[in-house]
């Protein structure tokens, strides 16, 4: 499966056992991406990590 990085347009080949909602790193630009669909393989930028006070 080939998907395109939404950040840098790199073509990323996804392993056959990839599941929806998996988070991967783009091998070219390092962006963390969520597999939002498998048909067709589609990637979206994973949500920013927020900061929160407390435990």
């Amino acid at each position, binding site marked *: 499966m080939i998907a395109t990085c939404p*950040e*840098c*347009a*790199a073509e990323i080949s996804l392993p056959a056992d990839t599941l929806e909602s998996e988070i991967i790193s783009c091998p*070219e*630009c*390092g*962006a963390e991406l969520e597999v939002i669909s498998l048909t067709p393989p589609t990637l979206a930028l994973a949500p920013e990590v927020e900061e929160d006070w407390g435990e």
Partner: protein
Amino acid sequence: MTRVSIVGASGYVGGELLRLLLWHPEVTVVQATSGRNAGRYLYQVHPNLRGRTSLQFVHPDKLEPCDLLFLALPHGEAARAMQRYTGLAERIIDCSADFRLSDPAAYKRWYGEDHPAPEWLGRFVYGLPEVSREALRGAKYASGVGCNATASNLALLPLVRAGLIDTSKPVLIEVKVGSSEGGASSTDSSHHPERAGAVRSFAPVGHRHTAEIEQVTGLSTPHLSITSVELVRGALATAHAFAVRPIADKDLWQAYRGFAKEQPFVRLVKERQGIYRYPEPKILAGSNFADLGFALDPESGRIVSICAIDNLMKGAAGSAVQCMNLMLGFEETLGLEFPGLHPV
């Protein structure tokens, strides 16, 4: 084995050529000349070569025929003696500035005199494989490259080739360079108490390498400034250009990736985290890699393109050996795979 000799082998570029060629699997270094050091062992000038070769410098007058000659002489000397050198070797790579510019008028404008051998200009291929790879294959004569020009050209070429630069706006390039660019001879300004710790505006305007940038990129007015910084090896070019149309990071990635994938020694460096997020010359010391990175200010459309090299390698001897590989039909990367050191 191909027999090569180096003329002017006692300088820093000569030393790097020796380091690369002595370990190159397809060539044998036959002679290394130096007028001042004739009779001395190579390691007495280039201490890193100790124990690896018993060669001694020979006087330039003793230069014998060979297959390929590297010329690493002060600017102007090669052009004045072309007849002699072409009689000694079928192929020549001249690391000086003498044959980099194809236009004699540009030479006169930037070097202040008429070219000593204009008839030879058209016979030399510009020695940056990233721009003249096909012409270099099998070529007889190749020029060297300017180190600052190379860092600048590699920073700009991805943008130029993708047509992303607004040529109606200025293109500014600031290059920070190490002290080895000044060559092996000392001057008042290289005296350690004066040079150490300096951030010296060496050539805010008027640097000769501007001509090479114009020639390679086709930009009519690249504005170049050079600053000497606390490095021995290394050059970092930071080029500022404005996008011709609204673009996103993605467009730049495509442009840079398109350029880099054709180039065995160009790597893209643009990380989101960590210490080495952009190109850093420090980790390229001794390596032939040129690391490219970029950033985009979407508000203003300013593109900042960054290229780090080792000035003695990609900016001189490394590119010259890469040219040799192409001229002689060897694997382009042969003898040049060293990735640099970390930490250093």
